[in-house]
Each structure stands twice: as structure tokens, then as C-alpha cells.
């Protein structure tokens, strides 16, 4: 019961760079363990140099402290490596509603993947008539596209 409570508290920790997504939506919250003397929270970074990781760790500590849990250990793991496939369905919906195209599915991000790493449609007008502007966008996890119908540029959360 306590574990469920902690998980629901942690669902309020948002990615500081995409403030509509929680760490659970993103799939970077990998586990919560209740040990005798401490709570161990396991998280994994999206990218090796993700600058949001330090803030996320601080946010996890402070929200748990606010809820009365003061002995918290944060365990940072690299393997298995995070993939955009771990983003939840509700995370994908929130992302699109925020104006960022959700990552393509069909394992196009894995080594053996055959799919294409492209957004399906413009998150604003839903047109499929789009083109890439740049492989890199405002953060490491995004690329920049534009819609050829509504003419708006938009971010695409890359397959990874």
C-alpha cells in the first residue's frame, strides 16, 4: 500500500524541460523499493548528458520529504537503456496536446528496427504533410519539423 502511495506521489514529478510529462509518463521511473531504513527510487536518464537529471533527482527528494519520507536513496541506472517505447500512452497523448509530436512506434528506434524515425502527423492540425527542418531541436531528445499545411514548425520527440 505504501509503495503505491509513493508511486502516486512520484507521478507528480515533472520533466523540467517538458513540464506536461511526469517521470512516470516518460518511462524513466524504473522502480520503487521499500527497504527497512530507506526508500530506494530507481531512475534512468533519457540521454547520457541529459541536463534535467540533476533537477529530477532533487525534485524526487523534495516531494518525498514534503510527504514525510526523509530517508530516500536514488539509484541511477544505465541498463537497460531507456527507450522512447517506454513512454506511456497517456504520456504520448499529453505530449501531442502540448504541441510536440510523439515518437514513432514499431521499434524504429532499436538497432534492428526497420521503421522510420518520423512523426506521423503535425500535432497542431494533424496533417500528414510535414517535413524535417533539423535532426536536432531544443533539447537532445527532440528534432525540429514543420507542417506544410498549417505552416507551423513543431518539435518531434525522437525515437530513441
Amino acid at each position, binding site marked *: 500500500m505504501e509503495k503505491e502511495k509513493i508511486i502516486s506521489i512520484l507521478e507528480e514529478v515533472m520533466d523540467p524541460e517538458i513540464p506536461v510529462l511526469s517521470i512516470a509518463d516518460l518511462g524513466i521511473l524504473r522502480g520503487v523499493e521499500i527497504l527497512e531504513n530507506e526508500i530506494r527510487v530507481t531512475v534512468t*536518464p533519457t*540521454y*547520457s*548528458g*541529459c*541536463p534535467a537529471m540533476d533537477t529530477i533527482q532533487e525534485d524526487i527528494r523534495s516531494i518525498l520529504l514534503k510527504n514525510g519520507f526523509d530517508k530516500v536513496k536514488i539509484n541511477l*541506472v*544505465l*541498463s*537497460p*537503456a*531507456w*527507450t522512447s517505447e517506454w513512454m506511456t500512452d497517456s504520456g504520448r497523448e499529453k505530449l501531442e496536446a502540448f504541441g510536440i509530436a510523439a515518437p514513432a512506434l514499431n521499434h524504429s*528506434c532499436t*538497432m534492428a528496427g526497420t521503421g522510420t524515425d518520423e512523426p506521423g502527423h503535425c500535432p497542431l492540425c494533424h496533417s500528414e504533410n510535414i517535413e524535417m*527542418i*533539423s*535532426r*536536432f*531541436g*531544443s*533539447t*537532445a531528445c527532440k528534432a*525540429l519539423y514543420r507542417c506544410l499545411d498549417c505552416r507551423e514548425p513543431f518539435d518531434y520527440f*525522437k525515437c*530513441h
Partner: protein
Amino acid sequence: MLSAYLIQLADNALILGHRNSEWTGHGPVLEQDIALSNIALDLIGQSRNLYQLAASRMNTLSPEKEPVTEDDLAYLREAPDFKNVVLLEQPNGDWAKTILRQFYFSRFQLLQFRDLLNSKDADLAAIAEKSIKEIRYHVKWSSEWVCRLGDGTTESHTRMLNALEELNPLVAELFTTTDYELAAATGGWGTDPASLQPDWLQAVNATLQTATLPLYRDEKKPALLLSGKNGFHSEHLGFILAEMQFLQRAYPGCDW
């Protein structure tokens, strides 16, 4: 030997990451400025993971010594202690030279980290697993640019030819095996870089051909007496370290 090997991997990533970060605010167009800054971020993130691992292994091996940290390794070593290849410390030059250097290195790093996925050191294998996804993207981006510049205008083609002339003599060092790399390969936690050369050559030349550029020819022996992997660097590394390490040396332990 393990720590020397880990430090070599980390130094390559840090020095190229630092060079790429010099483009931040100076890219030819905003989107590409951002691209190179993001690649710099990936590389510096990878180096940080590798320095943390090296520090932890060093501290386990020598418990009697003062413990070292990732920051000691990045900010408090002198140029002869750095083990990055000379290719990566070269000044950025123009966009063509920066692109070619990234392309050559990402192609190499992809093969190297592919082998490290099977490292006996589970922590090193985890870093490889994490990094390789980023490297694949760097390969994609830099290959596209090599083709765009090589098969572009007369001006961009000429600039790529100049970049090839400047950087090709520095490539052989990537595939020259040092004692610690051999020990790493024999021990099962590293890879012998010489074994990566055939695959590298094939992949690089396929792109150079598409880019209508002259193919890379193996020159068998390094054209340089320098060996960054053994601490014998070009003059450029000292200038990088002077800028990168200034703050930690002037204000030891400073944090923000």
C-alpha cells in the same frame, strides 16, 4: 590497465565534446548550432559516466590512496596524462573540418561501443548500451552532412577536400593498439581498435563515395610521431585544457 582504458574512452568523448561546444553560439545556422551543441552534450555525458566508472575502479584498486572523483580526472590532470587521440584535439577549422572529424570519430565509436556491449565489465557494457543509441544518431547526422557538402557546391566540395587532406594523416592513430588496449582486449573487457579498421574503412568509404569525395586509403603507419593515446599530444591540447580547467584550478572545489 582497466583504468587507463576507461580514461582513454572518457578523454576521447570529453575532448571532442569540448571542441564541439566551441561552436555553441557560432554555428552557421541556428539549427546546426543546436545540433552540434546537443552532440557535445551527449559526448560530455558519456565522458562523465566513464570518468565516474574509472574513478570507482581506481578507488577500489588503491584503497590506501586519497579517493579520486570524476572531477579530478577531468579537471586536474595535465596534458601528458590525457589519452585522447590527436585527431579530436584539432582546432575546429571550418564547418567541413568539424563535420569530417565528427563523422570519422562517430563511425569509429559506433564500432568500438558495439564491441563493448559484450564487455566482461558489466558497468562498462551498460555505458556502451546507453551511448550507442546516441552515437547512431551522430553517425546519421554527420554522414548526411558529409554527403551534402561533398556533393554540394564547388565551394563546399573544395572545403571537404581540404578537410580530408588535413585530417586523413591523423586517422591511423585510431587503429593503432596501445599496451592498455591490448590488455583490455585480452582481458575481455575492452576491444582491440586494430580489429575495427576493416569495418570502419568500408562504412566510411561508402559515404565518401556517395559524397563524390576521394576514398580513404589506409596509410598503414601513422604519419605522425605524436601518439595522443600515450600522452604525446599536439600543442592544441594544452590550450583546450587551459580554458576547460581554468575555473577548477583557480577556485579549487568550486561548484555552482
